[in-house]
């Protein structure tokens, strides 16, 4: 444990984070929306706190150790989540309690997209922009976390992205050094964002909406500047743009990197995770569209198809944009989509959920057990692509799955204890743990009616999901803190 080194990093993080409050001030100037003072105040508080953390120890040159990585990662989301709530809490016209502001801010930084605000369309532009920017920053953090840091910590089988990555990504540490890898990934992230904003703009959004939505699309966040989310634009073209970029952002960014460097699409085709991800979303989309059409919910074939695809991709990648109220769709559709969000995005993407690769390994492990019953003496490896996974990885994935389900149940029970009905509680935990956003029942549109305790519990769920469960849980164990 290196408290001084951690304090130094935290100080730097906060000071950097305070800088991100400057663009909303600029927006506020442009639109003259009167939210300027709260941002300036929040900037000063954050910056001075950061400086106060950093100044006393800025000379220290202590190296971080592997174990400190857990603390830094958790602090990144919790502390920034809390300080990120400042501008929202300080803006008095919004009338938000600190709990609400923190929920909104953590929901943003974890790219969940669950909101407590009603009446987005009337809010000042700077506040709207700030929410989107939080998601974009969160997404950027996740990319680095997922590709560069989690593999090092070896969370829940993700060490397979260290040395044992299958197929085209044999050197999944894309470049030899973490800082270089992070830089390369940021360029891709930035590039995707720019492309997405341009596409939205060409499809008919105004400049502000295009930029704002590109932030929350590429980050797989799901915040919108309108209460009706994507449904506000009522444009099939815009929805298709959103589908494409949600799909791209839900794939492993390392794949984007490899295929961009080799100028070919082969890496996507060779990667079994990406193939499974696309196939799964395709089949569920098809089913959803068919179900919508044949139950007469949507009478037009074209509409059924594009709503089916949009909603499946949006929920499946854990983005959480909505066009129509998917919560009131008939039969098992809402629950099916909710379950798809458990699979989530690919490892190394901005998506949430359990990650496709883990789900794939779970299926293969299940099949292996069946084959073992037929051939008791057979040696059956679990393979991804043509590469066999070590039992260590498979076990870690099973462990991850077990803990994920256990945490899901515990949080759901706590929520029901606060007086929530079962459907709402179930969907709220699923939506928050999978970093997806909108749930069913009372939380289908917004989380404003949840109790304060409920909101804090859901904040914990969002952080749990984002930090791949173990990163957060390990801090709660006594062994971690023992000297």
């Amino acid at each position, binding site marked *: 444990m290196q408290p001084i080194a951690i304090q130094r990093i935290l100080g730097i993080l906060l000071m950097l984070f305070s800088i991100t409050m400057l663009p909303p001030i600029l927006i506020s100037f442009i639109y003259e929306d009167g939210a300027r003072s709260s941002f300036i105040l929040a900037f000063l508080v954050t910056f001075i706190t950061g400086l106060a953390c950093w100044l006393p120890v800025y000379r220290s040159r202590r190296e971080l150790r592997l174990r400190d990585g857990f603390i830094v990662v958790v602090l990144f989301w919790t502390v920034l989540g809390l300080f990120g709530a400042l501008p929202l809490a300080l803006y008095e016209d919004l009338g938000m309690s600190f709990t609400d502001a923190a929920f909104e801010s953590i929901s943003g930084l974890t790219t969940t997209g669950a909101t407590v605000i009603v009446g987005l369309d009337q809010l000042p532009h700077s506040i709207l922009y700030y929410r989107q920017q939080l998601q974009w920053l969160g997404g950027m953090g996740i990319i680095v976390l997922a590709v560069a840091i989690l593999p090092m910590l070896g969370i829940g089988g993700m060490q397979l992205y260290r040395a044992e990555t299958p197929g085209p990504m044999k050197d999944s540490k894309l470049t030899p050094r973490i800082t270089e890898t992070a830089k390369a990934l940021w360029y891709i992230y930035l590039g995707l964002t720019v492309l997405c904003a341009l596409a939205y703009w060409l499809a008919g959004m105004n400049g502000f909406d295009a930029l704002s939505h590109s932030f929350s699309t590429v980050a797989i966040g799901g915040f919108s500047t309108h209460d009706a989310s994507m449904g506000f634009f009522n444009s099939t073209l815009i929805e298709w743009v959103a589908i494409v970029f949600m799909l791209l952002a839900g794939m492993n960014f390392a794949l984007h990197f490899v295929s961009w460097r080799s100028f070919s699409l082969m890496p996507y085709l060779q990667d079994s995770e990406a193939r499974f991800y696309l196939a799964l979303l395709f089949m569920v989309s098809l089913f959803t569209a068919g179900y919508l059409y044949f139950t007469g919910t949507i009478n037009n074939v074209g509409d059924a198809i594009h709503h089916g695809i949009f909603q499946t991709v949006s929920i499946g990648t854990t983005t959480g944009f909505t066009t129509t109220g998917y919560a009131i769709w008939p039969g098992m559709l809402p629950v099916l989509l909710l379950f798809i969000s458990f699979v989530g995005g690919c490892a190394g993407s901005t998506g949430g959920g359990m990650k496709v690769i883990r789900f794939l390994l779970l299926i293969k492990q299940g099949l292996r057990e069946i*084959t073992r019953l037929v*051939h*008791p*003496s*057979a*040696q*059956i*490896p679990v*393979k991804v692509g*043509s*590469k*066999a996974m070590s039992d260590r990885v498979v076990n870690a994935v099973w462990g991850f799955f077990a803990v994920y389900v256990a945490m899901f149940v515990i949080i759901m029970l706590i929520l029901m204890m606060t007086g929530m009905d079962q459907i709402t509680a179930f969907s709220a935990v699923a939506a928050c743990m999978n970093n997806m956003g909108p749930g069913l029942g009372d939380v289908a549109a917004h989380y404003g009616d949840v109790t304060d305790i409920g909101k804090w519990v859901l904040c914990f769920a969002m952080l749990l999901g984002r930090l791949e469960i173990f990163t957060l849980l390990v801090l709660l164990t006594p062994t971690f803190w023992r000297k």
Partner: protein
Amino acid sequence: MKIIILGAGQVGASVANNLASEANDITVVDIDARRLEDLQDRLDLRTVAGHASHPEVLARAGAEDADMIIAVTNSDETNMIACQVAYTLFHTPTKIARVRAAEYLSQTQLFAQEALPIDVLISPEQLVKNYIERLIEHSGALQVLDFAEGRVSLVAVKAYYGGPLVGHELRELREHMPKVETRVAAIFRRGRAIIPKGTTVIEADDEVFFVAAKKDIRAVMSELRKLDRPCKRVMLAGGGNIGFRLAESLESSYQVKIIEHNLKTSKELSEKLDRSIVLYGDAADEELLLEENIENCDVFCALTNDDEANILSAMLAKRMGAKKVMALINRAAYVDLVQSGIIDIAISPQQATIGSLLAHIRRGDVVVVHSLRRGAAEAIEAIAHGDSKTSKVVGKTINEIQLPPGTTIGAIVRGNEVIIVHHDSVIEEDDHVIMFLVDKKRIVDVERLFQVGITFI
């Protein structure tokens, strides 16, 4: 011919055995002096003890004036370096090396003359694998040998009661199958060769060798015996080099199970193979075979390093209901013992591999040699050079050629065309002629037949 053989292991010893009987000067080099003593006691050859790739050792073995060096030690690296040394220091004309690792073999530019100067690469495991693969492909055949890059095959098959041609004269074959071109090259009855004529009557239990294009093999076989169902379920015992390669190339079109008794090897196998089922256990374990439905298995191949284990596990599999069993057997004595008994096919790895070496030792332009019947008979593919004046075969009909006794010409390959010969077929320049020699001692006469006269430039 002066030949140096590096390595006195299984392959080295059997090569020495085969070549020593053909009036060649053989020197065998090995690091193990005891092994060399054994060899020297049995065969008429010279031995040198030492590290095979060291120049001093090679010089002692007479590399200065050797015509050929055959590097078949256990180590790929030693074999490759030995060829390099022989080329650079001694200018040995022909260098043959065994290289097993696919990592080397897949890089063909490695073996260019200016890189690693190896003229011929042999990979015995690959050859044995191909041999077994063809047997599984043509279920019912005892041997299937390819010529002219697979365009023509020589097939050995045992005639059974119930085959339409059994009990009839050979010339009726054409009436039975007017569209199929084939020629019976030899018949072995109770171990004795018969040179087939039109009037020869095929009896049950005859071993018939016929030449046919690949597509016609099944049709011809159906004349001689009731056809087996094409096989689907293959069980391999032993996941060594041969077992693994075989499983790898069979698994896309057959249901392959492979039994390996070493835990570590079986794990590695299961990781490398995609669709085969890798079983960890003993191939002679009755329980295991029962559990894996041996009675439904079409072919069982025992491919471990241990002759006795192979024979026993194959016998067990046969008794438990496997349709056909094959065993890999290194010792020549065992091959005679078990072949055509309980075990359907005994595979001798030496016989499968020696041919590729013999092709380079034969005088005249011989492309392919297959050793048959434990080295007693031979099938060769030779190229006819010269013209009607300088050559003893070009421009002549089959009847006019003065073939040594016991030799038959089965087919000619002209460009891409396969011609199954008749008595009036004419051989042209650059034809590939496929011949069957019942008695290997006549090989010298055949070589002489295909050598071009001195006047030909």
